[in-house]
């Protein structure tokens, strides 16, 4: 079972870094809000009927899924 040395060929460092930056930005905005502006995220989002902190938290979780799908689908397609 020989592994192809080019099997990381579809991998683009720039793309990976860009998605990492988005993930870090979204997550740490959330963490910083929790740490330094807890009152500011306590208001209720009218349509969803839940506090903004909850909606933001779910957004962080969703963001991880969406970014991972984008990265894997694109990279694996370029990988052939």
């Amino acid at each position: 079972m020989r592994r192809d040395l080019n099997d990381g060929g579809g991998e683009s460092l720039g793309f990976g870094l860009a998605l990492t930056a988005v993930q870090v930005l979204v997550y740490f905005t959330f963490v910083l809000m929790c740490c330094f502006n807890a009152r500011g995220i306590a208001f209720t989002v009218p349509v969803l009927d839940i506090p903004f902190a909850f909606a933001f938290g779910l957004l962080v979780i969703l963001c991880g899924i969406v970014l991972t799908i984008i990265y894997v689908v694109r990279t694996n397609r370029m990988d052939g």
Partner: protein
Amino acid sequence: MKKWITAFAASASATHALAAGGAIGSPSAIAVLLFLAVISITLAITWWAARRTSSASDFYAAGGRISGFQNGLAITGDALSAGAFLGLTALVFSSGFDGLIYAIGYTTGLPIVVFLMAGKLRQLGKFTFTDVVCSRLSGSAIRVFSACASLIIVAFYLIAQMVGAGQLIQLLFGIDYNLAIVLVGVLMVLYVVFGGMMATTWVQIIKAVLMLCVGGAITFLVWKQFGFSMGALLRKAVEVHPGKDAILSPTAFAKDPLSGLSLGIALMLGTAGLPHVLMRFFTVPDAKAARTSVLWATIFMNCFYAMIFVIGFGALALLRTHPEYMDAKGLLIGGSNTAALHLSHILGGEIMFGLVSAVAFATILAVVAGLTLSGASAISHDIYGALFRHKTADARDEIRIVRVATIALGLFAIALGIAFKGQNVAYMISLAFSIACSSTFPVLILAIYWNRLTATGAVVGGSVGLLSSLVLTVLGPAIWVKVLGHASPVFPMDPPALITVPLAFLACVIASRYWAPTESTPGDLRHSSPHRGKAQLEANQAG
């Protein structure tokens, strides 16, 4: 001896008291039946896997025959420990939104792993993350360091799981704590010694599927009670919790922002440095499958952590209106970690309770098996296989060593599980995460992306990260104040990741630039040049 007897008597009477109080501690027939089913199914898998495990590659990486989807489930199984399910539910039950921040943090690690590491790990490594680091850096110091860092992380994680397992099984089935620890230890050794990675992987897969189903069922049932309205659930929670409105927004994080930020870093980057999770990338055929497996793992894991929003607040809102699950002091019977189990009893009676208990037990078995395999691989493949026998490395010999290492680790885990009985071991998970994000993670990232990293730089930087996170955690609130009983912590931040992660990166860079590089021995198989490293690896794998 007297201490032991008192402890035994205390545990026996505690179990008896619990039996009188509710479902917990009085083993229901369904729970015992499912408990035995979990044991027999996993042992049958081990027997099946043992017949397919002959080479070193079979043992460490299931021969690279696991598909991306299967491996995704197995990663989910590795990452969702009993702590994630029972621990997080308990955390939300007692402190509301603060508990959810942990759940959210845990979801951010795996995407980073796939963006920056998964493909490269597959290109450079063979069985363990130490292989990846050593494909770029030469010398035995870095190999020993990486293997030791893996072992330390695995050991802390393992102790926490063992103690949790003992308490849980004692509560659920009325088995004595020490016996429960021995049972878990024996089972995990059996899986790993005979079935290797193949058995461990399938135990993880089954457990992950069970856990996702049970989590989904509890979420559905809780939600149904509140007319599928999260708003109604939260209003009920605020009504019954003494903290009122405060449970809907971050409180501990706002009170100590630096610790909060530090925890945020540890939750994200710690996942990216856990050796037993990284090891899973070598069980699939290629980099493409490695990425596909993270894709599935992220979807499953993130969905599960999103369910914790409903499960946690469901426990918070429902349990407090059922006094039969509380003791005289108004605390949960069996400790706060049982919140998810009590909740399942409210929702689905004995059947649901038995099912959730059996899944919690399967979870513990799967996680300890994964940890043991990872620790044993560090001993046999990284330390013994590469250092003492690297010229004449014989696969059969290596498997013999890994089996001995597994049994030794099993005994070690049983001994520590008994020694730490009754201790609050939550800080050990935090220690494992702190050490992972400030030692293995910086070394791995720099080894992959910074071609001027030297072996000396990696050892110095990794050791600085490891030791500083260990020392600062001991001096911090979790151990210095809560365990050792001092009035105030020497170091205020808990966990120390905010300081130790940058420190480790800085030490790697400084030592690489200003410390004379170590010479590689002539004829050494491992080389500092990435190209020669790869060529060597290819030769290894072709053979």
